[in-house]
Structures are given as C-alpha cells and as structure tokens.
C-alpha cells in the first residue's frame, strides 16, 4: 500500500468539500438573483409565506415556551448556588433573545421546512415535474426556489421575534407561578435589561437562518438522486447541512454582534 494513500483520500475529501461549498454558493447567488428578476410568482410566494411562516407558529411557540420555562428553572437552581436567584428575568431574556430563540427557531425550521422543501422538490425532480416546468417555459429557480427563499427571509425573523416573546413568557410564567417572583418586577427587569442590539441580532440571525434553511432545502431537492432513495437522501442531507450551517452562522453572527 502506498503510504501516501490516506493523504490522497484526505485531499480528495477536502477538494470535494470545497466543490460542494462552491456549488451551494453559486446556487444561492442564482436563487437570490431570481428573487429580484421578473417574472414573479405571487401565488407561489403567498403559499410559501403560509407554509414557512404561519404553519410553523405552533411548533415554534411550543418549543419556545418549554425552553423559556426550563431556562428559568435552570437559572434559578444554578443562581441559588451563589445567591443570585434574582437574575432569572435578565438571563432568561438575554438567553432567549440572543441565543436560544434564534437557534431553536432556526433548527425547528430546518427540521420542518427544509425537510419538506427538499422532499417536495426532490419528488418533483424524480417524477419529471421539474422537466415539465422547463418545457412549459417556467424556470424552476424562479418558480420553486425564489418564492421559498424570499418567504423564509421574511417569515423566519418574525418567527424568531414571536419565539423570543413566547420564550420570555414561558420563563415569566414559571418564575411567577413556581418560583415566587413578583410579576411586575419580573417584566420591568426583563424590559430594562434588553438592549436594541439584542433584538436586532436576534432578527438578523432569524433572517440568515431562514435563508440557509430554504436554500439548503431547494439545493438538495434540485440535486436529488433517482427514486425513493434519492428523495430520502436529499431530505436527510438538507436537514443535516441546514442544521450545521445554522449553528456555524450563529457562531459567526454572535461574534459579529457581541465580540467586535
């Protein structure tokens, strides 16, 4: 065996990884360019708004309320070790708005929306519906990708905002009902502690995560293999890629907003 074989394999893997990054970047640029160039498909856009935004509200709301409640319990228990129980409102607010709200909503969107977009478009590819679109003089990027990416760009920040509020409400409910906090003082502490930068960072993260989730779903759907296995692989790959990229983007954006 050639002693350099493992290095060759590693090199190929790295080159393949860069090739994938390149393809995804070109796909994303193409998708964004189709958002601003006519023709536009308002019906597809409205459906995407409904599917990505409105229909994601229940899962986002439930995730946020339980997370906010659990966060309050954890901070109270942890704070009690050094007599800092009183910081529950501030830490719940900052934890939800800066980190947990956007990340959990992003991951929920990856699970719910990215998978559904990838499976739908991959099935359309497998059943020749994408080819049919082309023969009917309709660009698949314009008809399928652009409306979904634009809808995610608009609705996911809104979902993050709703998730932040519901998460804080979850913490408020637990703190005031179980931990003996005064409701008015809790709310005052929350509002006083949050800064505009916290809220802006939360919404910007939401927009970035929304775009990542939609683009990954569309990319994997459009590039799926044949048959049921191809659709399954596209769906799995899209969720994995979206989740990892969302967490990586979260790290970068946190650095941009709070470390620089």
């Amino acid at each position, binding site marked *: 065996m050639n002693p350099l074989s493992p290095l060759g394999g590693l090199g190929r893997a790295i080159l393949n990884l860069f090739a994938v990054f390149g393809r995804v970047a070109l796909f994303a640029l193409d998708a964004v360019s189709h958002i601003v160039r006519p*023709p536009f*498909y308002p019906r597809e856009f409205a*459906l995407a708004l409904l599917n990505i935004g409105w229909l994601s509200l229940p899962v986002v709301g439930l995730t946020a309320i339980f997370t906010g409640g659990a966060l309050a319990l954890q901070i109270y228990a942890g704070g009690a070790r050094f007599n800092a129980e009183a910081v529950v409102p501030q830490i719940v607010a900052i934890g939800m708005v800066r980190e947990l709200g956007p990340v959990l909503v992003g991951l929920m969107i990856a699970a719910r929306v990215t998978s559904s977009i990838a499976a739908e478009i991959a099935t*359309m590819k497998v*059943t*020749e*519906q994408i*080819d*049919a679109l*082309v*023969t*009917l*003089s*309709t660009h698949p990027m314009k008809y399928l990708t652009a409306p979904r990416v634009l809808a995610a760009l608009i609705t996911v920040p809104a979902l993050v905002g709703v998730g932040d509020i519901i998460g804080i409400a979850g913490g408020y409910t637990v703190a005031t009902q179980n931990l003996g906090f005064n409701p008015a003082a809790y709310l005052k502490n929350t509002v006083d502690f949050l800064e505009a930068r916290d809220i802006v960072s939360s919404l910007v993260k939401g927009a970035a995560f929304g775009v990542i989730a939609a683009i990954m779903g569309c990319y994997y759907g459009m590039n799926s293999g044949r048959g049921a296995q191809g659709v399954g692989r596209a769906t799995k790959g899209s969720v994995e890629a979206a989740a990892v990229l969302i967490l990586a983007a979260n790290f970068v954006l946190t650095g941009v907003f709070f470390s620089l």
Partner: protein
Amino acid sequence: MIRMENVHKAFGENHVLQGMNLEIPKGTSMVIIGGSGTGKSVALKCILGLIKPDNGMIYVDGKDATKGDRDAFLARFGMLFQGAALFDSLPIWQNVAFRLLRGPLKRPADYAREIAIDKLRRVGLKANVADRFPAELSGGMQKRVGLARAIAAEPEIIFFDEPTTGLDPIMSGVINDLIREIVTEMGATAMTITHDMSSVRAIADNVAMLHGGVIQWTGPVGQMDASGDPYVEQFISGSAEGPIEAVR
C-alpha cells in the same frame, strides 16, 4: 423540421448516444423505437435542451436549437411525459392551463379555465374533472390530462415520451388514437418514443430504430415489417435471438 446531426451524450462511462442522426420533416409523426436504456428519452431531452449533448448539432427549422430566445423556443413545444408529470399541488384545470396562466402566453384566468375544460373534453374527460387534483385520478386519466396540457397552447411540435407505459391495452388504444387524431388535426410535428408496437402502428408516419447510440434504421411505418434490418425485425418479433442482447 427537426434535425439531429452526430449527437453524442455520455453519462460517465455510459455512452448513450454515439453519433445519432435523425430528421423529422415538418407536420409528420416520427416514432423512435428501441429497448429500455438505449437513449430514446435522452435524445428527446437533448432536443428540448433539458440535457446538453456532449457533441453534435440539433436544428429546429434550420436554426440551432441551443441558441436564441429559450422561452420562444419552448413555447413551440408541447410534451407528454411518461408519468404525465402533473403538478400535485395544482388542480387539473390549472395543470392543463399552466402555460396560459403565466409567462408570455398569459390569459385571464376565466378564459384559461375555459380552454382547459375544452382541452379536457378533447381528450375524453368531463368538465367535473377540472377541479380535482392529480392524485385523485387514475393513471389513464392522468395521461389524458398530460395530453391535454401538451396541446393546451396549440404547439407546433409535440413530444410523447412512452405515452402508453403502464396502461391497460384498451386505455393504450384510446391514448394512441387520441394522439393520432390530435396530431393530424393540429398539423403538428410529432416525435414519440416507445417500445409498444401497437403505438408505433397507430401513431407513426415514420419510424426510427435506436440501438447502440445510433439510428440503425429509419423509414415509413408501412415499410417497417419488410425493413430487412435485423434490429427492427428482432424488435418487432420480440425474439431473444438476434443482434440485440436480451440481457443488457
């Protein structure tokens, strides 16, 4: 007229088309026959630009098919896909009138719906099918809807990809007759790919046999049985003995 000159297409090591030449005169119906995996669908998709050939030229009415306004080029075509390829999320009438609801051929929705229902009637479907969804229809009905969609914008050229695959013999006969009637009535140029010999006899003016990436024989359908070509003879007889390997 459609002309393919020395068209090559490979997928990795699999050289599907290896210098395919074919001419389809305007207003005629050409049927391409050949076994599974011989590149019939690839040839068709190369003409439409869904697949880019590695080499060779394709002309439609003397113009290079890869150049010029793509929307205007595709507006001349209608296509019936093997599995009908109807859009699951749209009701039947919107599938049929898809081209008339958007893009350069856009018409008011009421008018587009009228045309869709008219085309559905033309393929033997009742108006009450219009508001149903593709998943609610049988395979034969879906094929008819696909046919209605292919002719909705009255294209000059219509492609049929395995129009009778998966249908029972009676429904196959109905679809074959419909295709023949519609092509004759519209004066369209038609290209059909199939391995169903009953379709060939019902639809074709001319037949081309594709094997090994090239056209082995082409001629009028009336001469097919006496072609003298061993590939065509084996294909018609369905024999395992001959130049076409039974196990590929």
